Each structure stands twice: as structure tokens, then as C-alpha cells.
């Protein structure tokens, strides 16, 4: 295949991946990496490196939009970023030392988890008061978000468990080149009990910082190929921004079902090819 043909294929695929990733809230990485590795037979390390960069582009590009509505909790994000960045560097370092087949198997398992997560119901937005977490109080993590009838206050719980899960999310991000959105949502929604709106925007804030931590490792190791990364970044970014704009008008239930199906197929393919040593 000529360089031009490859460039255009990767670009078009990344555009679709960014679009679908934004519509379903899972991020473009879960589609970009399998697309590059399975369909276009790009080495998995190049695929992961390029995907990490698209994660940063999407996070930074969407930041201005998210900031305006005042939903994200900067203190929660900063505190948890200690865990995600350390995890990310660990994951990126691990990527250099394990066989790509094993990385593919882990990727397949994470994809299955993400497909499952995308089908579950959103958790209850608000819970009646329970005893607050003293750590959350000491770290001033409790916050509020704007609503129709004035700001709604919320308390943050189970800080140590959330912090631990975030380290795992960072590790997977560094190893697999994804935003780890699904795991971040589990940590913030289910464990720390942040309201859904606060946790999803806070997660977007964190994803770029987490990916930047592992991107440094990928760059220095020579895993960032400009010819692969360029079409991925130029494709995922406009795809994701368009998807985010269309999101409020889409019927997300049907979309999630389709996307979960696609992801499951990709997961099985990654597991198979990883386990048989073809990746």
C-alpha cells in the first residue's frame, strides 16, 4: 500500500472512531487501536502511541466547552491525577517489557468490560446523606454543580478506594493508549459517589493529563511514529468534536447497543489474535 493510501485510510477510520467514541462516551481509543492493529496491521506499539495522542487532543480540544458549564470538580481531578499519572508511567513502562500479544489480550478484556459498562443504566444521580468521608473533608473534595434551582451540593466518599482504582485506570491508559473512561466512571460514580454530570466532565479533565504522562515515555522510547500519529490525531479530533456536538440530539440507547456490539466483536478478535501470537 502506498503511503498516501495508508494515510487516508487511517485518517478516515480515526474520524469515525472519534465520532463514535464521543457519542458513546467511551473515547476514540477503544476503536482506533483495534482498527490500526487488526485491520491495517500496524504494530501495536505504534497504534497505542498514536491513540494516546488523540486522547490528549480530544481532552484539550473539548476543555473550553466543558469549563463553561462549571460542572467539573478541579480538586477531585488534581488529587486523583497523582494516582493516574503514576499509574500511567507504570503502564507505559510495562508496555516496553511485555509481549505485544499479552497487551492485545489485556486490551480485549478491557474492551469487553467497556462494552458491558456502556449498556448499564446510569447510577442514581443523588443519594440521601450518609456520613461523609473525613479524608474528603480534609482535602476539600466536596463540591457542587449548577442546576435549574441553584447549585446542588454533593459529598465525596470512599476516597482511598477511588484513588486506588484511578491508579489502575492510569496504568491501563499507559499500557493500552486509551482514556480508560469506563474505569474512571466506575471509580467516580460508583465508588466516590460523584453526580454523573460532575464525574464525566471531571474525567475529561483528567484524561489528557493522564495520557500526557505516558506520552513522554512513548516518545522517548521511539513508539510515536509521526506518519501513524498524524492521520490519527487529524481524524479523531474533528470526529470527536462533531460527536460531542451531536450528542444532545441523539437517541443514545440504540447507539450504545450498536456500539457495544461492535466493541464485543473487536474484543474477541483482539483476544484471539493476541492469544495466538499474531499481534
Amino acid at each position, binding site marked *: 500500500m502506498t503511503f*498516501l493510501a495508508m494515510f487516508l485510510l487511517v485518517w478516515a477510520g480515526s474520524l469515525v472512531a472519534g465520532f463514535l467514541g464521543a457519542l458513546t462516551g467511551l473515547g476514540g481509543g477503544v476503536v482506533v487501536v483495534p482498527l490500526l492493529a487488526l485491520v491495517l496491521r500496524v504494530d501495536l506499539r505504534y497504534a497505542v502511541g498514536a491513540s494516546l495522542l488523540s486522547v490528549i487532543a480530544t481532552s484539550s480540544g473539548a476543555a473550553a466547552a466543558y469549563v463553561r458549564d462549571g460542572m467539573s470538580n478541579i480538586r477531585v481531578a488534581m488529587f486523583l491525577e497523582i494516582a493516574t499519572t503514576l499509574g500511567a508511567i507504570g503502564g507505559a513502562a510495562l508496555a516496553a517489557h511485555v509481549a505485544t500479544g499479552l497487551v492485545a489480550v489485556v486490551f480485549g478484556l478491557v474492551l469487553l468490560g467497556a462494552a458491558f459498562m456502556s449498556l448499564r443504566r446510569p447510577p442514581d444521580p443523588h443519594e440521601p446523606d450518609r456520613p461523609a468521608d473525613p479524608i474528603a473533608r480534609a482535602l476539600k473534595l466536596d463540591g457542587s454543580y449548577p442546576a435549574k434551582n441553584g447549585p446542588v451540593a454533593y459529598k465525596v466518599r470512599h476516597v482511598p478506594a477511588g484513588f486506588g482504582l484511578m491508579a489502575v485506570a492510569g496504568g491501563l491508559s499507559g499500557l493500552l493508549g486509551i482514556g480508560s473512561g469506563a474505569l474512571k466512571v466506575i471509580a467516580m460514580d460508583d465508588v466516590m459517589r460523584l453526580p454523573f454530570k460532575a464525574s464525566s466532565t471531571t474525567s475529561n479533565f483528567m484524561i489528557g493529563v493522564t495520557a500526557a504522562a505516558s506520552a513522554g515515555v512513548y516518545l522517548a522510547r521511539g513508539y510515536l511514529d509521526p506518519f501513524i500519529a498524524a492521520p490519527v490525531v487529524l481524524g479523531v479530533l474533528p470526529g470527536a468534536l462533531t460527536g460531542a456536538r451531536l450528542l444532545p440530539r441523539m437517541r443514545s440507547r440504540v447507539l450504545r447497543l450498536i456500539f457495544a456490539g461492535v466493541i464485543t466483536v473487536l474484543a474477541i478478535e483482539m483476544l484471539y489474535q493476541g492469544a495466538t501470537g499474531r499481534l
Partner: protein
Amino acid sequence: MRAWTDERMERFIGGLLRAGVLVSVALVFLGALVSLLRHGGERQNFELFRGEPEALRGMAGIVTGAFALRGRSLIQLGLLVLVATPVARVAFSVLAFFLEDDKIYVVVTLVVLAILLASLFGIRP
């Protein structure tokens, strides 16, 4: 007062990030254009993992190549700008928490910044 400072700072940071992404995309696009014009018809093999040459791994090599208008170096410079955007966000958050006199979060944010810089400037685990 606190909410006001947070919001204003965040708005500023949001604009800064968008500008960073635009500069990055422009550099990547330009680099891709140069590369495609020069090598678009050649065959490329990305199945074989070689690792990038030294000139595309470090900042000094990338900047030198970009000034020589090498397509690959221009793309790589754009990617470096992209990686720098979240780092700038964290750096400005240090300033924001300092202005709010929030000592705990000045320290928390400095720790995150230190981890990021250690990763980018080559302290390898």
C-alpha cells in the same frame, strides 16, 4: 469569591488549551502535507516495528528538524505541542490555587506537575 476565581481561571485555561490544540493541529497538518508531497507514492511498512530514530525522540532533534522543514520533524513538533497542553493546564492550576491561597492544592498540583515533567524530561522508570 472562590467560585469566581476558579471560573475565570478555568475559562482562561480553556482558551489556552484550545489555542495549543490549534497550533498543534496546524503543525501536524503542515508536516503531513510536506511528507505526502515528497513521499506520498512510496510504499511504507508499519507492520515491522523499528522504533523511531534518535532525531525524532528528543526535543532538540525534533526542533532542529522542524526548522529544516522536514515533514516528520514538523509532525513530531506538533505532537510535542499537543503533549504540552495538559502540562500547561496543570502549571496554570498551580498558579490558580496559589492565588486562592489554597496551600494543600498548591502542593497536590505541584506533585502532579513534577510527575509529568519527570516523564517528559526523561527520568525513566
